[in-house]
């Protein structure tokens, strides 16, 4: 009764296949976007930027990318950390080599470079499937991290082996470096994530998305219906790596400010993103955001409650936090194995009928 689509008639195919077909959904999304773009920048401070909003946006971008590959095209990858490193180092090299380049262009170019690397490491997927592919992509993770540690050219021969983002401005306001105001970095990331979330949705609802999902669901039938497996899989790897590369670039240039391959982009990050999309919902754009929120915001919330609210010692809180997150992951996966996005879908169906049982 609360949430319903009756009376919301569609008279054209374009209205029927729009991004948010239900009016209430549409208004809700516009409302959230308006709040995020128009209100949050005035409220944001350093703490909210560095501990809450930027990590959420960066990981949401990475989760979107991996979800395209794993959730929509069915190719499991454990190379996310490595691809994020490619994006970060490409971003660094571009920032240093072309100081005048617009930061949006830098991040997108970093994504494109990662896309090319992703295609290269996606080639084995034509022969290898499932868990075996996961192991093959693991090789890319270790190789890329090794490469960025070993070849000094990538970190411009700096003594520490780290890369640090130089200051770049956008419309005269610093967007990277220590001087960048929180609202600027936030708006920069928010714009990128919003635009590319819509693009991801456009890709998965059209011809290309269908060819990915066909390969995921039944690769033999997909081929017989006219989907070239090579093109479908490699395009999924390319688009996915593009997103992951952008998230790596954002993580390095805007969120962390400096990076070091083994710590910032290790195997733990690959698993983290994989967990995000499994908990959020494979094959769902919304799921990528929910999963990223779950694994980046919940720890912050728990820490605030336990340390700030109850006044417990921080070390105890840190351990309890791990326990609680682990338990919650298990709880949600038992309640709904298809992730938070499916939970939301089921809730919506219930809301449509509420308070009646049928």
């Amino acid at each position, binding site marked *: 009764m609360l949430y319903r689509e009756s009376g919301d008639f569609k008279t*054209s*195919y*374009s209205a029927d*296949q729009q991004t948010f077909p239900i009016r209430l959904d549409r208004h809700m999304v516009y409302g959230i976007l308006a709040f995020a773009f128009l209100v949050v920048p005035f409220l944001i401070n350093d703490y909210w930027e560095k501990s809450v909003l930027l990590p959420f946006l960066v990981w949401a971008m990475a989760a979107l990318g991996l979800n395209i590959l794993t959730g929509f095209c069915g190719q499991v990858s454990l190379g996310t950390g490595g691809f994020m490193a490619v994006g970060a180092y490409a971003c660094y090299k571009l920032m240093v080599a072309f100081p005048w380049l617009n930061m949006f262009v830098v991040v997108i170019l970093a994504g494109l470079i990662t896309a090319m690397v992703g295609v290269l490491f996606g080639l084995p997927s034509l022969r290898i499937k499932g868990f075996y592919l996961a192991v093959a992509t693991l090789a890319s993770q270790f190789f890329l991290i090794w490469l960025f540690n070993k070849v000094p050219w990538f970190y411009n021969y700096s003594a520490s082996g780290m890369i640090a983002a130089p200051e770049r401005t956008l419309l005269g306001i610093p967007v990277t470096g220590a001087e960048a105001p929180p609202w600027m970095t936030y708006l920069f990331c928010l714009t990128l994530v919003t635009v590319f979330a819509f*693009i991801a949705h*456009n*890709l998965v*609802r*059209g*011809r*290309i998305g*269908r*060819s990915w*999902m*066909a390969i*995921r*669901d*039944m690769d*033999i*039938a*997909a*081929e*017989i*219906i*006219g*989907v*070239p*497996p090579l093109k479908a899989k490699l*395009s999924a790897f390319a*688009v996915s790596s593009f997103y992951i590369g952008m998230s790596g670039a954002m993580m390095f240039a805007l969120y962390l400010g400096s990076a070091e391959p083994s710590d910032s982009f290790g195997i733990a990050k690959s698993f983290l993103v994989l967990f995000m999309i499994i908990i959020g919902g494979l*094959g769902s754009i919304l799921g990528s955001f929910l999963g990223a929120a779950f694994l980046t915001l919940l720890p912050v919330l728990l820490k605030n409650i336990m340390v700030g609210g109850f006044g417990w010692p921080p070390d105890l809180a840190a351990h309890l936090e791990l326990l609680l997150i682990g338990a919650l992951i298990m709880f949600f996966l038992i309640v709904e194995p298809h992730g938070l996005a499916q939970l939301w879908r089921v809730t919506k169906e219930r809301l449509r009928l509420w308070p009646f049982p049928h």
Partner: protein
Amino acid sequence: MAEPTQDGRKIGGTLLEVKNITLSFGGVKALTDISFDIKEGEIRAIIGPNGAGKSSMLNVISGFYHPQQGEVWFRGQKRASMRPYEVARQGIARTFQNIALFKGMSTLDNLMTGRITHMHKNLFWQAIWKGPAEREEIAHRERVEHIIDFLGIQAIRKTPVGRLPYGLQKRVELGRALAAEAKLLLLDEPMAGMNLEEKEDMCRFILDVNDEFGTTIALIEHDMGVVMDLSDRVVVLDYGKKLADGTPNEVRNDPAVIEAYLGVGH
């Protein structure tokens, strides 16, 4: 060439011809020296006992298996060795014996996937969506809606196919093959596991597709009643060899066929 049949349909020249196909897996010969043709506009049945090589034959035509010897001629041209998606692009669509739908997608998306060989807008336009990609999508949606209408599956348009009952899944799979608007439609046991009513529906669809759209159909089926009623010509395989080829009546009275199916005392 066109000679009208009793019911007034037009049967044209040869659409597809297989010549001396021999296919073996290691030492096992699945097909031995098989030749037959499929004429434009006809319904051609391939029958035979289990393991006769019927599905192998279909897999050769749709490019899954590459025979050791023999040629496939399609629309008057000898076909080079092809991958299945290239065969699809040439205009051959098929369904599978055990349903091979895309389970995570809705009925509509499954049918839209069937039109993939006709859609060409690239990644860039797809990403922008508004404009060319959306126009293309809507144009193809209209075609697909015709097929949804034809098969009477409007109510399950947006249902994920994994939730549908078996009979409907078979129907959706036929729809997906129809959406390709192929010249030649290969149906691998379209009526397997169906009840009488569903079989009758499916027969009606097959006849209507052939009649209304002029689609050439090659089907494998075990229900002899269906085969004899539907098909214009029948080819009979047994142990990978061709036993007989002709109209249903000729085949029915062929001693070799009777022996293969019923067994004859010696």
